[in-house]
């Protein structure tokens, strides 16, 4: 027993160290790029800070603020200064929300998370099911129907699908709310779970519909590859039926690429949520991103950039972790004797 646990522990330690090192490098690169890009952007931090009160503040006072913030320092020094604060966990204060950036992100992400989770699960499961059906019945009418659906959705812009859903379900049928995360005029502590879910469902559906197309088409292609493999030919020679081939061999062999895709789709989902939340006026992280960008809220924007990098990286790491669990060739490959 001891002999087996030791390599596993070592594996975990090495894996974690590698991942953390890469994450550090990634975040460093993100920091450099965001800082350089923002220094060259036309946004003047002092003006963005003062906002509408610009007229009441004399140029001398503006210079004083800039000096106090260290804006007169050379770019290298400014960067180090900023990085020092960042490392201590200080992301600054959001100008739009007048709250620490970390708090804004935390509360906004909580609202988005439920929507993202529903969309993620839904698109993954439905995409897998549709992809398997289409792949197994390649060339027959269910396959054509599913492919038509997938190609149409894959080429439809997210915001357009969101608007369409809004028109159909909220305006025509009136079974879904038009906007927001809760009914207007209700205090947040009085909102019930069902009301929350009711407001969540349409944005989540819009978001998942886009993801489904991608996963369906990939799953379909992978299953077709598997069905043309030698081991499926052999299974047919043993008298295995099509659905049992899918069940015993197809599913096993498409699971790995499907899971990779599923975790990689987190980034697309995150990007899609910016547009969807905007259309539904859903107060999530995506909507905060648009606000921050439109109103030159640099601290919040930078915070969100970091957070999304972390989010996507976590998704990919989870996919990496899933490989050895699913594929014995990866898990046992090294211990081959």
């Amino acid at each position, binding site marked *: 027993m001891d002999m087996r646990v030791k390599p596993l522990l070592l594996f975990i330690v090495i894996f974690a160290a590698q991942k953390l090192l890469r994450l550090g490098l990634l975040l460093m690169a993100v920091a450099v790029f965001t800082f350089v890009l923002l220094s060259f952007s036309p946004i003047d931090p002092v003006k963005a800070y003062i906002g509408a009160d610009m007229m009441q503040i004399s140029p001398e006072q503006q210079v004083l603020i800039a000096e106090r913030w260290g804006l007169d320092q050379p770019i290298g020094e400014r960067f180090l200064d900023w990085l020092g604060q960042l490392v201590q966990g200080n992301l600054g204060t959001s100008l739009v929300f007048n709250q620490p950036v970390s708090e804004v992100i935390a509360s906004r992400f909580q609202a988005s998370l439920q929507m993202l989770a529903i969309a993620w699960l839904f698109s993954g499961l439905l995409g897998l099911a549709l992809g398997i059906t289409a792949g197994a019945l390649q060339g027959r009418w269910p396959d054509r129907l599913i492919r038509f659906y997938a190609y149409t959705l894959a080429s439809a812009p997210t915001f357009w699908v969101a608007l369409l859903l809004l028109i159909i379900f909220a305006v025509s049928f009136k079974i879904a709310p038009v906007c927001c995360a809760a009914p207007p005029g209700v205090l947040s502590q009085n909102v019930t779970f069902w009301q929350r879910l009711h407001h969540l469902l349409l944005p989540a559906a819009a978001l998942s519909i886009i993801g489904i197309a991608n996963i369906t088409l990939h799953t379909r292609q992978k299953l077709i590859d598997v069905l043309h493999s030698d081991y499926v030919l052999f299974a047919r020679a043993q008298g295995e039926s099509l659905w049992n081939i899918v069940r015993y061999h197809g599913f096993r062999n498409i699971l790995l690429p499907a899971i990779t895709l599923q975790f990689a789709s987190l980034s697309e989902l995150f990007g899609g949520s910016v547009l969807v939340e905007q259309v539904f006026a859903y107060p999530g992280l995506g909507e905060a991103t648009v606000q921050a960008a439109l109103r030159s809220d640099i601290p919040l924007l930078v915070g969100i950039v970091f957070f999304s990098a972390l989010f996507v990286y976590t998704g990919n790491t989870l996919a990496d972790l899933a490989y050895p669990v699913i594929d014995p*060739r990866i898990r046992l490959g090294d211990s081959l004797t």
Partner: protein
Amino acid sequence: MLSISNLGVTFTQYNQGLRRKQLTVITDLDLDVQSGEVVAVVGASGSGKSLLAHALLGILPKNAAISGTMRFQGEMLTPKRCQSLRGKAIALIPQSVGYLDPLMKVGAQVQRVAQLTGCSKAEAKTGVDRTFTRYDLPMNVRDRYPFQLSGGMARRVLVSTAVVTKAQLVIADEPTPGLHPDVVKETLSHLRELATEGRGVILITHDIEAALQIADRVAVFYAGTTVEIAAARDFHSGNLRHPYTQALWRSLPQNEFMPVPGNQPSPEQLPTGCLFSDRCPWVSEICDAERPQLRKVREGWVRCVHAKG
């Protein structure tokens, strides 16, 4: 128990535009197998050996059409009958470990094959135990994945897939290439054993030497047709009937090591007469006029008008 006569396999293809093209890859293939014998099917790649196996199992691609007759245990082999027999009465031993699901444990795969013949789960399990014991496969091999098997073990596992089925006809498709001589010998002796138990075995190979070690009879395929069916002893005694078989025999290293000049005709441009006519030393006018019929000469079968009794 198996007799195939005038089997033809034609693929319908669409090339650029929507022009339909008929590609005849097997023309006039004949073969018969009795229970308890090993019949080797030899021929170069593209001679239709593997397609014959796929036709027998009913696993040809959808665009393939079959002509001619195949009889198994006295009854015609229709596509429907193929479907119900495959895995039960007719079993395939595939070429390599690549024909096993890479993500499924070996024991589970062999057990699945047994279950497909109609066994219950428990029966299938004991069947696997019995077969693995018979082939000296340690019990822990059942929990391995195909990539963890050594070459010899993989061969024994693949033979096991046919043995658990109790199939009367076993088709081994190229079971020996790229293997260590000891493993080749072992695999061949396993196939011979299956015949001794009363099954019919078709050994598909391009290795005449290997085939002659265990086969009772040898069928030689050329460009999708049977040119000769000879007893294994006919090779050593110089009793061969067809010029192609003779040339093949001469090309072996221990004989004259003389390659057969020229190439097999491609299925796109088959000659109207004898398929071997363009490489044949005996060629004459009759050969180009029409395809020779398979006829009995000196206790064997040959498709050549010049072969003498």
